[in-house]
Structure formats: structure tokens, C-alpha cells
């Protein structure tokens, strides 16, 4: 029964959405095809030295405190409101490897679809950024993000949402993101997403024994601007491989599309029932 009802609404929703409500419902996170020229970064775990140059450059660029601890096996570090990127070290089936973690800058970000004030936006250049003057601090972006990227300043009376912005202001000045600029081992490559995927494929093809044949981020959560190459399956490096390949805003689309149709249908149905049962009322009043 529930399935029928849902599909019923979906069909009506599509019909309703094509009407006047279309513009109202247009999502911020409109499906964007993969060949759109978003900027991104390709991170190669096999080249990463774990030197934390990226962490220090990030802290300097964003005026955050210097990293105080070093990556080591068994000690899982997390990004938080004081650090936007971190390096972790894992012992894997092929030996020790480092891995960088930060916001993935999804093509269709859940946080952007979740934001009710357009504080979180996907810029046309690719980075997902947060705007202080819009945000009301509801933290729905944090609930929705499958990578847990947005962090919140819980100990501030005027808290900010903190996450990697891919150094958006530096990009606008024509500079590279601070971490890509600082990396001494060429582990972080900045470029357009399309080129980076090509480069990733090339590296896998040329060194099939060095890499697992997978670019993490190419399809995860509908595609992300941050792409990962690694020697071992990336779940050995603390990443979730169970994420859906569809984009996350897709999950609420069915519900949102049913809204205009309910707004048209419900009142007319209710008014109809009201008119039909009017007689009952006069009857019961007569009895009193």
C-alpha cells in the first residue's frame, strides 16, 4: 500500500513540478554531469610522505593553530573546528600508508541541499563553501553529509561551520589551494576534475601493481571533486566504501516533489469531504 501511494505521489509530483512550481522547487544541487569543468584535487596515497606540510599550509592559510600531533598507526586523527585537513597513518595489507582527509566537495553535495538559507553553496568553480552571513547554525548540513565534513564551533557564542573550502579565495586570486601548493611529494594534484580522472586512470594503467584499480570519489555520493588513488582498497585506510553511488540529495527528491501535488490535492479533497458531510451536521443539530 505504501509503495503504491508513494509512486502515486511521485508521478503526480513530476506533473506538479512541471507546472508553475517548477522554478520554486529547482534544487540548488541540480544534477551536474561529470564532464562539467569543476576544479578538484587528485590525492595519491602512495606518494604521500605523511610530512604534514599540507596540514601546516592549511593552518597558515586559514589562520588556524599549527598541528600538535603526528600521524602514527593506531592513532586516528579527525578533522574538527580547529583543523580542516589531517593525515592519518594506517597499517594495511601492503604495508604502512598515509591518507589525507578533508571535505570531498561533492558534485551534488548533501550539505548544500540540506541548507535552508543557502549558506552552503556549490560554486561554479567546484569548491563547496560556507557563508557566515547566511548561516543560522542549525547543523542540518552536518546531519546530512555522508563524509561528516562540516564541523561546528560548539564552544563559541557566534559559532561558524568549519570545513575545507579548497582555498576558494586563493583560487579566485589564481593561486593553487594551499595544501596542493605545499606538498613536497607531488601527492596532491590540482586541476579540473575531468583531467584528474584521466590522470588517475593513466597512473593506474602504467603501474597496475602499485595501485588498486579504483579511483575513490569518481562515483561515490554521485561524484566528488576530491579523488583518491591508493595501493590498497580504501576501506583499509579508514574510508567508507559502502556509500551509495547516487547523489545524496536524490534521497529527498521524491519527498520534495510530492509537496506541490499534496498542496493542490489535499485542500480540494478536504473541501469535497466537507461539502459531502455537511448534512450530518444539520441532522445532529436537530437532535440536540
Amino acid at each position, binding site marked *: *500500500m505504501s509503495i503504491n*501511494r*508513494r509512486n502515486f505521489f511521485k508521478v503526480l509530483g513530476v506533473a506538479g513540478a512541471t507546472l508553475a512550481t517548477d522554478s*520554486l*522547487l529547482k*534544487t*540548488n*544541487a541540480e544534477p551536474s554531469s561529470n564532464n562539467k569543468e569543476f576544479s578538484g584535487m587528485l590525492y595519491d596515497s602512495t606518494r604521500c610522505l605523511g610530512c604534514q606540510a599540507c596540514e601546516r599550509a592549511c593552518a597558515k592559510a586559514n589562520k588556524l593553530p599549527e598541528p600538535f600531533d603526528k600521524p602514527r598507526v593506531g592513532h586516528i586523527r*579527525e578533522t*574538527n*573546528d580547529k583543523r580542516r585537513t589531517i593525515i592519518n597513518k594506517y597499517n594495511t595489507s601492503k604495508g604502512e600508508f598515509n591518507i589525507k582527509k578533508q571535505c570531498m566537495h561533492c558534485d551534488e553535495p*548533501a550539505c*548544500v*541541499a*540540506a*541548507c*535552508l*538559507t*543557502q*549558506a552552503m553553496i556549490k560554486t561554479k568553480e567546484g569548491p563547496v563553501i560556507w557563508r557566515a*552571513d*547566511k548561516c*543560522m*547554525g*542549525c*547543523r*542540518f548540513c*552536518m*546531519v*546530512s553529509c*555522508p563524509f*561528516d565534513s562540516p564541523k*561546528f*564551533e*560548539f*564552544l*563559541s*557564542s557566534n*559559532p561558524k561551520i568549519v570545513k575545507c573550502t579548497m582555498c576558494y579565495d586563493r583560487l579566485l586570486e589564481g593561486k593553487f589551494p594551499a595544501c596542493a601548493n605545499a606538498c613536497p611529494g607531488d601527492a596532491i594534484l590540482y586541476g579540473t576534475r575531468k583531467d584528474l580522472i584521466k590522470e588517475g586512470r593513466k597512473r593506474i594503467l602504467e603501474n597496475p601493481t602499485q595501485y588498486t584499480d579504483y579511483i575513490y570519489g569518481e562515483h561515490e555520493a554521485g561524484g566528488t571533486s576530491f579523488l583518491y588513488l591508493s595501493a590498497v582498497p580504501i576501506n583499509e585506510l579508514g574510508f*567508507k566504501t559502502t556509500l*551509495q553511488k547516487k547523489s*545524496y540529495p536524490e*534521497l*529527498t527528491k*521524491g*519527498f*520534495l516533489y510530492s509537496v506541490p501535488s*499534496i498542496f493542490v490535492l*489535499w*485542500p480540494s479533497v*478536504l*473541501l469535497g*469531504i*466537507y461539502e459531502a*458531510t*455537511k448534512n*450530518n*451536521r444539520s441532522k*445532529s*443539530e436537530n437532535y440536540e
Partner: protein
Amino acid sequence: MNNTANIIAKDNEGTAIWKFFLSELKPKGKWLTPFNIISIPVIILGIVLIIMRFYNGLGTVTNLTQSVPWGLWIGFDVVTGVAFAGGAYVLTFMVYILNMHNYHSIVRVTVLNGFLAYVFYAGALLLDLGRPLNVINPIIGNNFGVSSVLFLVAWHFLLYMVAQLIEFSPAIAEWLGAKRAHKILSGMTIAAVIFGITLSTLHQSGLGALYLMAKEKIHPLWYSEFIPIMFFVSSVFAGLSMVIFEGSITHKVFSDQISEKNHHNHNKIIHGLAKICTGAMFAYFALQILVFIHGKHWSLLNTGMGYWYLVEMIGFVLVPMLLYFYSYRKNNMLLIRVAAIMTMIGIILNRLNVSVIGFRWDSAIRYVPTWMEIVVTLTVIFIEIWVFRWVINRMPVMRESPAWAKENK
């Protein structure tokens, strides 16, 4: 404005309006009741905590973490509180749309309850906002995040509060003795009811849809793409169970206000509501079973969370449903009330399981609310009861409307 004030003053036999308000603000009745003795210290403490929270940030008062950003204030105050406020839209549907006139005597108190619940529980949402001054952004200006479920929910809260205020406004007009306003406002009731039911359908389910994108974070036994439908269906019997529970209490506390006829009627009303609850719970239980089978989660049942799921589904959905059915057949008022309380516990469990207990169930450090979060929650509830009591003692909510209002129809 001046014009309305004149009308009111005239109807009140020339008493100045501000004098009337001042006299009404004074407390009526005894001060040192057990409820006051408990609630006043809690409210004072809660207000201190709220000031601390705005001064030093959410982290000083709550146990929220970077991976569990929503806690008790959202999971209980907002998500659960709004489910319990669902009685208002169900009852207005029955009385104004289906014209089931028997239930008319409890419509006003239920709508008042619903209205206050929305004001206070949506108000609790403000306590949880990090940057509350920007709350105007989604309401005015060009910052509409229309692809957000929360945008929809926020707007519906706001509009539904207006609709409920209109539904309740004839009682305010009767209190003020505003005859002309009463006539106009009464005429708006049916439109407000239709609008209100539509809004309720969408935001009751919308509260569930909030969690749709948290797909990997919620325990699979509670996460499904049907959360919105589950939330909507369960809001029907959650709201009605609240009406039964709250009606039983207010009927005792404010019994001096209720006419002989309505006293007599009350058991019949509760009896009827029990029948509706049985039906709605049966539909809900069947849906839950369908979703469970559809999800192929049999292996999860034999885990800790699986037992917890069974406790909720059998102990607090199936059992109260059967209890409602049995007590309805036997016409046993006591058992109906027991079933109502069990159902309400089941709703609290369900909403908390989705929003707090099952959220990040796999993380090493679990979120447990601080005592301060609980005190603030109690503060919100107690202040709501204070306002509720204030209104009941002044406006014709439980008692009969004045004679002129009846002729006015």
C-alpha cells in the same frame, strides 16, 4: 488598531482595555500547589542554563559532538513534541471536515494544546540554533534554500502556527468580548482547518524526511525510504493518545469548568478515540512489518539493537494496539488510559531511536544528553503548562462559550 481597541472596549461595558489586561495577568487561585513548587525552581535553573548556552556556546550545556550534531533538543523537543501535537489536526479533521459533532467539546482544548506545543517546541529549535539571529534568513530576503527539507518544515511550522491561532481565535474574541471580531474569525475557521491539515500532513512527514540523507548514520532497522510515511501515520495515534492522556488530566484539574453535559460526554469521546487509535496503529504496524520484510534485516534482529527494535515494535506498538482494541470492546476507561500512555512511550522510543539512539549507533563514543539538556527540556514543557493553565483559567476553552457567541454563529 485604534478601531479594534474601541470595539473591544465597547463590548466590555466601557472598561479600558489595558486595565482589563492587567487584571487578567494576575494569577488566579492558590500559589503553593505541588506543581508550582516543582516547576518554579526547574524553570529558574533552566533559564540560567539557557543564558549560559547563548553566552558560551552550545558545548557548555550540551554533550553534542562533531559526529552527533543533533541531540535531545531536536530529537525530543522538536521531533517528538510535534508528533504529540498531531492531535490538533486529526481532531479538526474529524470535527470540521467529517462533521463528527460528538467531538466538538474537546476541539478547543486540543487546538490550544497543539498551538502551544508548536510555539514552545519550535521555540526549542531556536535554542538549538548556533546563529539564531539569522533565523530570519529563510523567512525573508532572497536566501530561500528551497531544496532543503528543513526549509519546508520551518515554513510549515510558521504557517501552521498562524492557522492554529486562527482556529483558536474565536475563544480569544469571546474572552475579550469582541463580538464583531468573533464573527469574522469564526468565519475563517474552515479555511484555516483545511490549510492546517494540509500543512500538518506535509510537515509531520517532513520531520521524518529530515533524516533521509543520513542514510548510513541511522541503524538500518530504523532507516528506510519510508520514514516520512511512518512519521505521518504514527502522528495520528500519537496525537490522539496525547489527547486521551491530557484530556484525562485536564478533566480532573479543571473539572469545575466543565458543564454537566460535557462531563457525561467525555467517556464517550475517549471511547471513540480509542477505536480510531486501534485502526491507525494497525495500519502503522502493518507498514512497519512490510518495511522490515522489504529491508531483509532478519539477521539484525539477533543483535542488541535488534532486541531494542523488538521492544519498541512489540512492547510499545503491538501490545498497546491490542490493549486499545480490548479496552475499546470492553469499554474499560482505565485500560484505554494505560494503552494511551504505552503508545506515547512507544512514540518517544521511535522518534528517539531514529534521531538519537539509532543515530551513529556504531560510533565508539555515544551521545548521552547532559542533565542540563534535560533541565532545559523540562523548562520548556513547564512554561508551556503554565501558559496553558493561564489560558484555560481565562478563556472559554473547557467551559461553555458565552451566550452571545452561540447566537453569533
